[in-house]
């Protein structure tokens, strides 16, 4: 399937639509077996959120405005985190994903240092859930042990399941039928996921709009996550 290399997964984040509701964060935690971020872990600065909402305050009270910026792994084409790994635990696959191979990881944490977006997380502790929550773990996703790195995978388990489905049914992907958990959950459709190689897909069209930009463009990492600028109403 991937020989023809017909996929290049990408996401468009429309910051104009984002309300900062954090539903994507919760959905991601549930889908990907991310361990619970207790108060303790936040204080230790060791919380794990594969997607997070950055909040910027603008203006002086009473004219304060909040701006939200959902940040997840940018799946860069020239990902700085990849070449520094000594054991190939992270590399770029031919569908444009920056993948993390948990088995190979020895935990040098070098990738986290060379990650300009702060979207890589280290398991300082063994992940734990309250007894009641153990049954809700997603069977498709590995539970990561302590001592290794993890990060957003664009819900790679959903991608591969869908690809198997397509192969069995012998059909092409319909735009919009494949959604990572965060996209699925977003109430305002601020997150859009799809195949950037398909010029008719929604992501490809949105990515070409006039409002697009990418995070830290001057670093030349060429992310596959494209942001759309906020529209200023009072200008």
């Amino acid at each position, binding site marked *: 399937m991937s020989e023809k290399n017909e996929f290049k997964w990408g996401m468009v984040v429309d910051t104009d639509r984002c309300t900062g509701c954090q539903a994507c964060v919760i959905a991601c935690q549930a889908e990907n077996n991310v361990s619970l971020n207790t108060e303790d872990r936040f204080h230790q600065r060791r919380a794990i959120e594969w997607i997070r909402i950055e909040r910027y305050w603008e203006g002086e009270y009473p004219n304060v405005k909040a701006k939200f910026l959902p940040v997840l792994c940018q799946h860069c*084409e*020239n*990902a*700085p*985190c*990849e*070449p*520094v*790994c000594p054991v*190939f635990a*992270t*590399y*770029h696959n*031919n569908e444009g994903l920056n993948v993390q191979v948990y088995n190979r990881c020895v935990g040098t944490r070098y990738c986290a240092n060379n990650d300009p977006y702060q979207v890589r997380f280290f398991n300082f502790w063994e992940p734990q859930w309250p007894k009641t929550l153990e049954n809700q773990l997603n069977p498709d996703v590995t539970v990561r042990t302590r001592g290794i790195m993890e990060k957003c995978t664009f819900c790679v388990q959903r991608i591969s399941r869908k690809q198997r489905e397509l192969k069995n049914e012998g059909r092409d992907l319909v735009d919009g039928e494949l959604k990572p958990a965060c996209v699925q959950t977003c109430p305002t459709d601020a997150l859009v996921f799809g195949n950037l190689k398909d010029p008719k897909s929604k992501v490809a069209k949105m990515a070409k709009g006039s409002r697009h930009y990418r995070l830290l463009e001057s670093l030349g990492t*060429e992310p596959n996550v494209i942001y759309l600028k906020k529209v200023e109403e009072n200008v």
Partner: protein
Amino acid sequence: MTTFIPKRSLLGLFSTADGAADAVEGLQDQDFDDKDFEIMSGTPYPEGAFGEKTTNHRLYVFPFIGAALGFAVAILLTTATQVSYPLVTGGKPILSIPPMAIITYEGTMLGAIIFTVLGIIFESRLPRPKLGLYDERITAGYVGILVTTTEDRFKTAKEILTKAGAEDIKEGEPD
């Protein structure tokens, strides 16, 4: 092939380097070849100080061989590991020359150094399983002169050593 002539060894011990130098001079006067006697000292005297002929060595060949070997192995290893499982990382080419240069450099230097050390040991005619005729006073400041010669010249050698002031003379079989 010459017929085998039995030889005997003789070790003269000198408390001063001057005496040993006299002995070397005496031996050379009596047409003893440089191969017939060896000087042993616990102190590195400057080259040629005893008037001995300096020997040639081929030590400088070793680092080059080692460097070539190390270079080849390192190039092979870096190329093979990248090509055999081509994973793209960070948009860098599969055969990335600068990192290869770094590792190849280390490999080259490692090869050169290991071979140099082997060369030093080999060219010093070491390791030597048996010490042969030897005296422990040599490392405590004495200079020893080991003469290995045929029976007929044995006496001459002994005379020279005694005349030069050898404190002690040991006899033994050559190894």
